[in-house]
Structures are given as structure tokens and as C-alpha cells.
């Protein structure tokens, strides 16, 4: 067709038919028709005349770039040189040099730029002058740089010099500089120095001194500008004396400007501290030398001042110095005034009053009048109490032979003491003729009467004082510690001699008490019966000593820091128990139960089954009221001390910087892995702890038996308590598959104990053949659930059934644990028989060792080895009381073994385990196990040889 078309010539434009117009085009036309124009701008799509969307690129606008795909804008297309971005910098139409300089360069150029001066003021002295005056005012409020008073009369305000007046006529105004300073690039460095200073004073731009400071800064900033120099005024520097101890130019707040404010608040006078560093260089003695030196740049002592060091602002300062000169007198005068006022407060300039002074005036207050002081004089005659304090005690004399007379004397003395001397007079008159009352008139027994009277008075007076908690019998409450001390402390031996006379049937209270007291403290052997009463621990002298010590301590009162030191050998619980007994005994004594006939027994007080030789002596009749004893218990119940085992976490110990008391023991079981675990095990834990105590008390055998065997038995009991319950559980669950393993592992456990390898090897050789058969039988038996006793097992079976009913445990299922307890008890009881069985035990061990080898031959499984490791470690720890469940688990294996062996053997093997543990402390470690294994191998090799 193309070839055909070439032949034709067309004129005009062909009419497009409807169908030729593409849909795109239609759309664009439709858009153009305005229908779509009403859409929101973001909904409109930009299309070309063909209706196509043009893709500019994913990163250059997508389908819509520019202003609706144009380079135009809302206002239409306007050519612009430079439009900028965010901050409308485009508005800077006029560019100058500064636009192209960065800050540093600008700073450098700054000195060269022209600018308007704030100082220019058409109307002469207005703003500048006001500012100047303000500054002056402020200066008056400042301390002076020159200390010491300068009277106003001396410093006469000088009139203006003629030069100043001339210049004023010529149009110069105060504060304006005259000389133009030379400009030089050298100045830049100086400028920086100045800036450093300004930085210091930056925050000091107080509004009050605003214009002045503006001056100052303008000057600083523009002073290099020679042209404008004439229009500038020199700043008035507020003279601020240097008040700190820092070196010149040193800025303590250089790195920490935040604190400057803080510091200023501390120095109330320094509102404008920024200025204060400038004056010294003008006022100082060396002002001439240092005047031209730029601040902040020091000159060494040996250096000479040369051109470099000269201050670029020399001119300004020169003038400034001039101005200062004019103003100085008034200022000084005012400042002096201020200084004197300051001085009145006793504060030197440059010092500030310390907030807290070390010096403190020591005051001696007059003696304090006691609160209860009554300004009323008490005459001594009126008060017997006061009297007897000064009264010298009469000589202590033995009572008269005649008992009746003695009693009479004592009775009269008591009465006289109670009723006063008048009674004595009365009775003397009444019984003038009675020879019995001779003692009143200085006859027979007068001395004794005097003594008794004095004692009675003491007693009577002491009644006022609060009675000490003493072992005073209720009927003799009048007796106090003081009087007793007088009775006993002075001549105790003498009194005891007197006590050799047997007491009459009807003794007075005092005598009775004296007997008791002296029995307690002085001569216990003089009277048999009272001694027994007051010595509750007579059978145990050591304990009695402790008791007395306790009583002494108790009545000394106060805070007691030390425990009974001598009883350090006793265990904590034993001490606590004893203490309880002591308390009970003391209580009983206080309540008079230790009187003549009534005696509480230890059982009743303590509620502990007795019969252990620790009891109170029960020689007398036991007529004590139980109810009172119970009261005692109630009283001594609170505070009640209990002791438990508690295991701190090892990390806790570490954090407290302590050594873990349970270090080396297996880690505690994970706490309550499941509800079931916690339910089953937790009570056991507590019980084990209490059980420990119980066993301690139970093992409080007579001292002769409390040897090391007793201790081991204690430990064993503990172990058993820990073990029993979980074993049952485990047994219930795992009994079927653990049986054979246990049997074998136990044999292996015992292997390392054998201490005589050669002997062992011999035995091994001889019995090897038998053992093979035996082992086979044994394993077969176990498979079938039977128990095959080892052949050469020599047993001494304990009479177990008799002890099965031990009251300690009532676990119905727990035959194993029962056996264990029994075993332990036998342990202690049957130690005497141990010698007989020594040889047997040896052979037994040998046999075990060899059998273990066989075991290894037969079973090499990993599991087996694991068992072995567990077993050995558990044996290592067998003697410790731990609450570890893994331990319990392991112990079950031991128990299995025990079933077949005699208790004798077990105890011996136990002992060896302990020995072994001491040899190799890291019984749990893998190394140990390997060694074990290696040993076994070596032995095997040897046996083969």
C-alpha cells in the first residue's frame, strides 16, 4: 500500500475520523475542556498534548516535575539570577564581600569595615553623658582598689585642667577620643586578646551600664578604624578592684562559663565583674610599664617591653587614663567612705565573711539547775533517808549467843527503823526493868543492836528506790542489792562463820534471807540443803559457773555485747538452750520457787524430756505449781529464737565480699521447677533444718560419749533426713531401670577406697574366676528382680527389726530410710565391735575393687560412667548435710548397697570416703573421675600381669 500512496498527491488535511482519535487524546481534550481542572492540584495529572504522562525519572520528579511539568511557577515564568532555599536568602539582592566570606574571614575583616557609631549624637552630651554618670554612680558602690581610709578633706576634687576646658570649648566632649590610633594588621592579634577579655565580661552586660558598655565595645571593635576615631568616645571603665587571688588575666571560669554567674552571686559587690580586670593596669604602681601592654599577654621578668608587646589600643588607654585622672578624686573619696562602712563590719576588702568559720567561741554555760530542783532546803534531821547516806555503818559484830535475844534485837531494830527513834525511846522507857532489853541501854548485845538498826534503816530507806529485779524472795522484799552488798560484800566469810549455827525454827525474815544470800554467794558448802536449792546445775560445775556468770551479767544490766565467752566450745544451739534454762532458773529463783521446799524440775520449766544429766537437781520434793511454771514459759517464749539452715546464693556472697559457706557443695536445686516439685520438696527442706536441731539435742549424751563418733552420727542423721523423701519418689518412678545400675555403680564407688593396692590385686587374682560367675549371677538376679547376696560377703546383720519402731520417723513407705537411721544408731552403739571386723572389712574392700574392674569390663556405656561420677561425688559429700536433691538421688544408690551389706561395712566405707575426700578435695570434678577411671585401668593391667 505504501507504494500505492507514493503515486497519489494529497491536498489539504485529511479529516480525522472519530475512530482515529485515540482515547488518550480524547482524555487530554476532555481535560483541556476544563472538566478536570477543577480537581485538586495533587489529583491532577500532567500530560502532554498527546495525553501521555511523561516520566522524568524516578529520582527527578517522577511523573510530575517542576511546576506541573513545566519550568514555570505559579506566578508564571520569571527569570531569576539566584533563588535560594530555606531562609529566603534570595531576598539579598545586593551582594557584597561579606556574602562570600566565612565567619573567620569576616572577623578578620571586621576591623577594616566602616560602620556607624552609636556614639554619634547630635545633641552633645546626652546619652553618653547619662551613661557616664551612671557608671560613676556605680563606681561609688564598689570597693576601692586602694585599701585604707582616705579622708575627704585630703582628696579635694580637682577642677578641670585648662586643657580639658579648652578642648571642651573646642567641641570635645568627655569620653571622646582625640587621637586617632594607628591602624595596622598587627592589631588583629591584640584584638583577639581584647576579645578574650570581652568574653569574660560578656555576661556582665548589665542593662544599667548598657550604653557605657556599648561604648566600650564599640571602641574595642572599631578602634582600629582610624577614620571614625574622632566620633568615638573612649569608654569609661568601671574601676573594679581585683578581689580574687587569681593571677592577672587568669579566668577561673574559662572552661565553665556557667559558674561565673554563680560566682558573681557570691560576690554581691561585683555586678559588673567584666570590667574589673581592666583597671588595675592603670592604677597599679607599675602602670607606666604595663600600661601599653595588651592585657592577657604577660611579659616575662627578664623580657623587655618592645614594640610587639605594645598595646594597639595604647591611644585609647592613654586618653582613658587621662579621663580617669580627672575623675579619680571624687571617686576615691566615695569609695573610701564605702570602704569604711565595709570595715565596720569587720571585713577586710578582698575578703568575704566565711559562711562557716572554724573558730567557735567556746562558751561555758552556767550549770544547769536540775528540773526537779525545788528551792527549799531539806534539813537532814527530817529525813532518815538522807541521814543514812552519811551515817557510818557501825561495826559488824557477831550476834549474841542467845538466840532469843538475837531475834528480839533484830525485831526491835526493824521496828525502830520503821517507826523512828521515838519508838526506841518509848521501848527503852517501857522496858527499863526488863533485862532482856538491856541492849537498848548499852548492855548485852548493844553493838549488835546498833548494827541491826543501821541495817534496818538502810533497808527502810532503800525502799524508796525502785527495787532491782533481784532474786529476792517475795516475803523479804525490803532487802535490796545495796543492803545485801553491805551484808555480804564486807565480811562474807565472817558471816558464813555465823551461819554455822543452825537456824532456829522461827527465824525472822531478815535472817532467813541472809542465809539464802550467803549460801548463794559466799560459802556454798556450809549448808547442804540451801546450796542445792540455789545451785540448779550442781551436777555440772562448769555449767554452774556459767550460770553464775549469767546471773552476774544479768544484773549488771545494760547492753551486753559479749556472749558467754567461755562457752565458745558449745554449739550455737546448745548455748541458746542453756541460756533458756538459765533464764528459767533465774525466773524461778526470783519468784521464790527456790525457797526451802519447792523446786521446779528441769522438765517442767523447759518442757524438754529430761534424763540427760543436765537437769536441775531434783533432790527435794517437786511441789511446784505447774501453772506458774507455764507462766514462766510464756514469759520466756517471746522473743523466741529459732535457728535454721539458710543457703545464701553464691553470687550474693560474692557481692557481699564473703566466702560462700556452702562453697564446694553442690548447687542448690533449681527453685520450684514445677508445682509438684515445690510441693514435695519444700517442706522437707525446713524439716531437715529443724531436724538438725533435734538431733543435736538428742545427741546431747553424757560427755563421755560425746566423742567424734557421736558427731559423725549426727551428721549421718542429717544426711538421712535430707535423703529420705525424694528417694521414695524417685524409687516409685524410676525403680525399674535404676536397679541394676545402682548395683554396679555402687561397687565402683567403693573402688577408690582401697588403700592397699597390692593386697587388693592379690585378692583380685585369687577371686577373679569366682567373681565372674558371681557377677553373672548377680546381674541375672537383678534382671529377675531377685537379690543375690555376694558370695564372700561376711555380714554382721544388725538387729534391725527391734529398732524399726524408732519414734523419729513414721514414714510408712520408707523402709530404706528406717534402715538408715538404724544403721546410724548402730554406728554409735556398735563401735566397740568394730575392731573385730577389721580384717573382714579389708577383704571386703578388695573384693569390691576387683569387682569394679569386672564391671568396667562388662559395661562401658557412657551412662554407666555418668552414674559412676555421680556416685563418687555423692559419697564424697555423704557426710555433709546438704539439701541437695541430686544428693538424695545418689544416696538412694548407697542405700541399695546397704541392703546387702552389713552396717559395719558401710560405716567403715563411709569413713574411708571421708578420708578420700580429704585427699582429693575436688571430688566432684571430672578430673577426679578420670583419675578414677585411670586407676581402674591401671589396676586391671596389673591384674592381668
Amino acid at each position, binding site marked *: 500500500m505504501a507504494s500505492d500512496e507514493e503515486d497519489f498527491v494529497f491536498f489539504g488535511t485529511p479529516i480525522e475520523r472519530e475512530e482515529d482519535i485515540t482515547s488518550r487524546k480524547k482524555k487530554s481534550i476532555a481535560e483541556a475542556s476544563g472538566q478536570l481542572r477543577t480537581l485538586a492540584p495533587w489529583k491532577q495529572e500532567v500530560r502532554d498534548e498527546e495525553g501521555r504522562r511523561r516520566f522524568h525519572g524516578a529520582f527527578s520528579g517522577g511523573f510530575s516535575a517542576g511546576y506541573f511539568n513545566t519550568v514555570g511557577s505559579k506566578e508564571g515564568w520569571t527569570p531569576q539570577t539566584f533563588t535560594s532555599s530555606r531562609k529566603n536568602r534570595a531576598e539579598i539582592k545586593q551582594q557584597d564581600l561579606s556574602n562570600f566570606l566565612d565567619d573567620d574571614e569576616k572577623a578578620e575583616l571586621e576591623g577594616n569595615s566602616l560602620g556607624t557609631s552609636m556614639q554619634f549624637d547630635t545633641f552633645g552630651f546626652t546619652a553618653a553623658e547619662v551613661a557616664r554618670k551612671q557608671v560613676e554612680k556605680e563606681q561609688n558602690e564598689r570597693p576601692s582598689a586602694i585599701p585604707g581610709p582616705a579622708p575627704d578633706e585630703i582628696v579635694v576634687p580637682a577642677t578641670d585642667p585648662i586643657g580639658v576646658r579648652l578642648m571642651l570649648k573646642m567641641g570635645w566632649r568627655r569620653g571622646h577620643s582625640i587621637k586617632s590610633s594607628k591602624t595596622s594588621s598587627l592589631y588583629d592579634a591584640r584584638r583577639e586578646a581584647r576579645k578574650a577579655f570581652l568574653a569574660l565580661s560578656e555576661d556582665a552586660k548589665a542593662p544599667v551600664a548598657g550604653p557605657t558598655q556599648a561604648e566600650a565595645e564599640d571602641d574595642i571593635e572599631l578602634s582600629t578604624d582610624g577614620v571614625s576615631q574622632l566620633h568615638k568616645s573612649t569608654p569609661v571603665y568601671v574601676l573594679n578592684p581585683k578581689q580574687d587571688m587569681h593571677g592577672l588575666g587568669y579566668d577561673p571560669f574559662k572552661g565553665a562559663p556557667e559558674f561565673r554567674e554563680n560566682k558573681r552571686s557570691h560576690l554581691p559587690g561585683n555586678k559588673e565583674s567584666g570590667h574589673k580586670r581592666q583597671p588595675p593596669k592603670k592604677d597599679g604602681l607599675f602602670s607606666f610599664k604595663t600600661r601599653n601592654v595588651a592585657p592577657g599577654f604577660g611579659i616575662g621578668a627578664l623580657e623587655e617591653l618592645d614594640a610587639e608587646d605594645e598595646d594597639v589600643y595604647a591611644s585609647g588607654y592613654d586618653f582613658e587614663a587621662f579621663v580617669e585622672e580627672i575623675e579619680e578624686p571624687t571617686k576615691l573619696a566615695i569609695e573610701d567612705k564605702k570602704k569604711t562602712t565595709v570595715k565596720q563590719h569587720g571585713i577586710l576588702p578582698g575578703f568575704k565573711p566565711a559562711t562557716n568559720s572554724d573558730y567557735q567561741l567556746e562558751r561555758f554555760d552556767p550549770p544547769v539547775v536540775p528540773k526537779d530542783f525545788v528551792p527549799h532546803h531539806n534539813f537532814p534531821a527530817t529525813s532518815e533517808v538522807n541521814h543514812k547516806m552519811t551515817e557510818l555503818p557501825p561495826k559488824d559484830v557477831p550476834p549474841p549467843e542467845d538466840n532469843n535475844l538475837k531475834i528480839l534485837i533484830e525485831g526491835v531494830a526493824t521496828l525502830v527503823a520503821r517507826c523512828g527513834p521515838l519508838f526506841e525511846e518509848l521501848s527503852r522507857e517501857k522496858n527499863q526493868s526488863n533485862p532482856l532489853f538491856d541492849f537498848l541501854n548499852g548492855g548485852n548485845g548493844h553493838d549488835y543492836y546498833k548494827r541491826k538498826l543501821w541495817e534496818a534503816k538502810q533497808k527502810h530507806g532503800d525502799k524508796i528506790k525502785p527495787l532491782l529485779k533481784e532474786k529476792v524472795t517475795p516475803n523479804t522484799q525490803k532487802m535490796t542489792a545495796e543492803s545485801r552488798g553491805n551484808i555480804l560484800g564486807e565480811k562474807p566469810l565472817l558471816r558464813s562463820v555465823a551461819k554455822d549455827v543452825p537456824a532456829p525454827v522461827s527465824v525472822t525474815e531478815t535472817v532467813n534471807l541472809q542465809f539464802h544470800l550467803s549460801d548463794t554467794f559466799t560459802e556454798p558448802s556450809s549448808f547442804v540443803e540451801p546450796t542445792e536449792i540455789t545451785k540448779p546445775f550442781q551436777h555440772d560445775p562448769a555449767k554452774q559457773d556459767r550460770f553464775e556468770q549469767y546471773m552476774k551479767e544479768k544484773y549488771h*544490766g545494760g*547492753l*551486753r555485747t559479749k556472749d558467754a565467752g567461755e562457752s565458745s566450745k558449745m554449739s550455737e544451739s546448745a548455748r541458746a538452750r542453756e541460756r533458756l534454762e538459765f533464764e528459767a532458773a533465774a525466773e524461778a529463783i526470783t519468784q521464790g520457787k527456790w525457797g526451802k521446799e519447792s523446786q521446779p524440775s528441769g522438765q517442767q520449766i523447759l518442757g524438754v524430756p529430761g534424763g540427760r544429766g543436765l537437769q536441775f537437781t531434783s533432790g527435794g520434793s517437786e511441789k511446784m505449781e505447774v501453772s506458774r511454771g507455764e507462766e514462766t514459759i510464756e514469759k520466756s517464749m*517471746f*522473743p523466741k529464737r529459732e535457728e*535454721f539452715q*539458710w543457703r545464701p546464693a553464691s553470687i*550474693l556472697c560474692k557481692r*557481699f565480699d564473703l566466702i560462700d559457706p556452702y562453697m564446694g557443695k553442690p548447687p542448690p536445686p533449681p527453685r520450684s521447677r514445677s508445682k509438684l516439685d515445690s510441693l514435695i520438696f519444700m517442706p522437707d527442706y525446713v524439716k531437715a533444718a529443724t531436724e538438725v536441731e533435734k538431733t543435736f539435742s538428742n545427741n546431747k549424751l553424757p560427755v563421755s560419749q560425746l566423742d567424734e563418733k557421736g558427731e559423725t552420727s549426727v551428721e549421718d542423721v542429717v544426711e538421712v533426713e535430707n535423703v529420705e523423701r525424694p528417694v521414695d519418689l524417685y524409687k516409685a518412678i524410676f525403680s525399674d531401670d535404676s536397679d541394676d545400675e545402682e548395683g554396679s555403680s555402687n561397687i565402683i564407688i567403693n573402688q577408690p577406697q582401697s588403700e592397699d593396692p597390692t593386697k587388693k590385686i592379690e585378692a583380685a587374682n585369687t577371686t577373679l574366676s569366682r567373681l565372674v560367675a558371681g557377677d553373672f549371677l548377680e546381674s541375672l538376679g537383678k534382671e529377675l528382680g531377685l537379690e543375690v547376696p555376694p558370695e564372700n560377703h561376711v555380714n554382721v546383720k544388725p538387729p534391725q527389726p527391734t529398732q524399726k519402731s524408732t519414734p523419729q520417723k513414721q514414714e510408712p513407705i520408707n523402709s530404706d530410710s528406717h534402715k538408715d537411721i538404724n544403721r546410724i544408731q548402730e554406728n554409735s552403739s556398735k563401735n566397740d565391735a568394730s575392731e573385730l571386723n577389721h580384717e573382714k572389712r579389708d577383704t571386703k574392700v578388695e573384693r569390691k575393687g576387683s569387682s569394679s574392674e569386672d564391671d568396667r569390663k562388662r559395661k562401658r556405656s557412657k551412662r554407666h560412667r555418668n552414674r559412676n561420677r555421680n556416685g563418687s561425688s555423692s559419697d564424697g559429700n555423704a557426710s555433709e548435710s546438704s539439701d541437695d536433691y541430686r544428693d538424695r538421688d545418689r544416696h538412694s544408690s548407697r542405700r541399695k548397697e546397704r541392703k546387702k551389706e552389713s552396717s559395719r561395712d558401710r560405716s567403715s566405707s563411709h569413713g574411708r570416703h571421708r578420708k578420700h575426700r580429704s585427699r582429693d578435695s575436688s571430688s566432684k570434678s571430672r578430673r577426679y573421675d578420670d583419675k578414677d577411671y585411670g586407676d581402674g585401668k591401671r589396676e586391671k593391667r596389673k591384674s592381668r600381669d
Partner: protein
Amino acid sequence: MSAEDLPKNEAQVLKGHEGAVLTARFNKDGNYCLTGGKDRTIRLWNPHRGIHIKTYKAHAREVRDVHVTPDNSKICSCGGDRQVFYWDVSTGRVIRKFRGHDSEVNAVKFNEYSSVVVSAGYDRSLRAWDCRSHSTEPIQIIDTFLDSVMSVCLTKTEIIAGSVDGTVRTFDIRIGRELSDDLGQPVNCISLSNDGNCVLASCLDSTLRLLDRTSGELLQEYKGHTCKSFKMDCCLTNSDAHVVGGSEDGRLFFWDLVDASVVSSFRAHSSVVTSVSYHPKDNCVMTASVDGSVRVWKA
């Protein structure tokens, strides 16, 4: 120290807490103090000048106890939100939150090396939290108590805690032993004497009891105040000569340590005195109260 030297003059009133102040504690040298209260904030003060320095906010409920390390760098606090907060003093940020208590936490203390925080909770447990590691799990839980643990004290080797079950329990880490002293009355607060030999227990029968720690013996009872239902503090003076305790009627009591006589007592607050803290060196005591104020008393 005689009774005349006991603090009785109000030196400062620290106001700022909204609502009850539940705890007020001096720092180690006594120059600063921390208070915590119902308004869920902990505030740091200079109690001698009466200046409020900083407020620590993060607790979701009331703050019941707060303790600061000896070097003043860290704070631990606890409260009704069941958490123990471990703060940085200077930044005021919470370094760590120890969660684990099942209920409100009543008391909290640092150990000597500030490495462990021990908290006592209403959930009948004591928990020890490790500050050194990043773990937020307790390193030890002691749950032998039978009721809410109200107060805890630490020595170098022991953790001592008092509980509503009436016991004061001493956990000796060195020996691995728990001593339980049953007082028969709910224990509200315990406080160690400065020589460490005694423990003072405030019981809910309005009695303070002084126990000898070595023997567990009751040395003295102090009565006269009211303490029946509130968690209230008690303490000994820094000389151990007197016992200080607040009362529910807003009074402050001083007892003689030995003869248990009330040496001094005055109305310190208009309402319950919740917390009492004695200055470690000076004769100065700080009391906090339900009335929202903390007062500093000096001799």
C-alpha cells in the same frame, strides 16, 4: 548526751510533697536527705538549709522507701508499683528497674558496697538484686517469712528483716544460717543500733522492743506512743543513748535506752509520723508525716 541535747526545736520544714510523705532518710554524712511519698516522687533536699534540690519521678505509685549509697551516687527506691528502682543521682534517670515482687515493696536497702539492693515486700519475701550485672532477676529470694516483710537492715554479713508474722529474722550470709526471733507481735520496722549489737523492733502493739542480737534476748521495751496500724519508723540516736520513735498522734518520742523512760516527747506533726531518721553525727532528727511535711529538728 543528756536529755537536754535532744532535738526539739524545729529547724526547717521541707514542703513540696503533695500528700503523705512516707519515708525520709538522711544520706551517709547527713548533709542531704531523700524523701518519698504518696505523690510518687522522690525528692532530694538539703535539710539544713531547707532547699529542695531535685525531684525524681518515675514511680507509678507511692514511694515507700528510699536509700542512697554511701558515695551519694545512686539511689534505690521502692513502692507500691512492685518495682525497685535504681537511680542515678546526678542525672535523675532510672538505671534499672527490678521487677519480681508480686506485691508492694515495703523497704529497700543497699549493702555496704552498694552492689546489692535488698528489698522487702508485701509478698512475704526478701529479694536481693544485683546492681553490678545487667540482670534484672533477683540473685536471691528469701521467702521463709509468713507474712509481709516490713523492714530490712543490712550489715556487712547479715540481712535482717522484720515481718508482720512477728519475727525478726537474721540471715547470716557468712555462716549460712537463719535466726528467727519471734516477738509475738507484728513487727513494723526494725532498726539497728549504731554499734550493731542490738536491733530495735517497732511492734504493732505500740511497743518498741530492743533485742540483743547475739542472744536474741529482749533487753527493753519502750512504750507510750501509739503504733497500731501504720508503717512507722523507729531509730536510735547516733550515740545509742536514746530511742526515737514517732506516734500516730503526730508526736515524737524519745526514750532513754536503758531505763525506757520517756525522756522527751513533743508534737511534731499534725498527723501520723511515718518516718524518723536521725542524723548520723549531729543532734538532729528528721520526721516525715502524713500531713505532707518533713521537719528537721535540732537541739
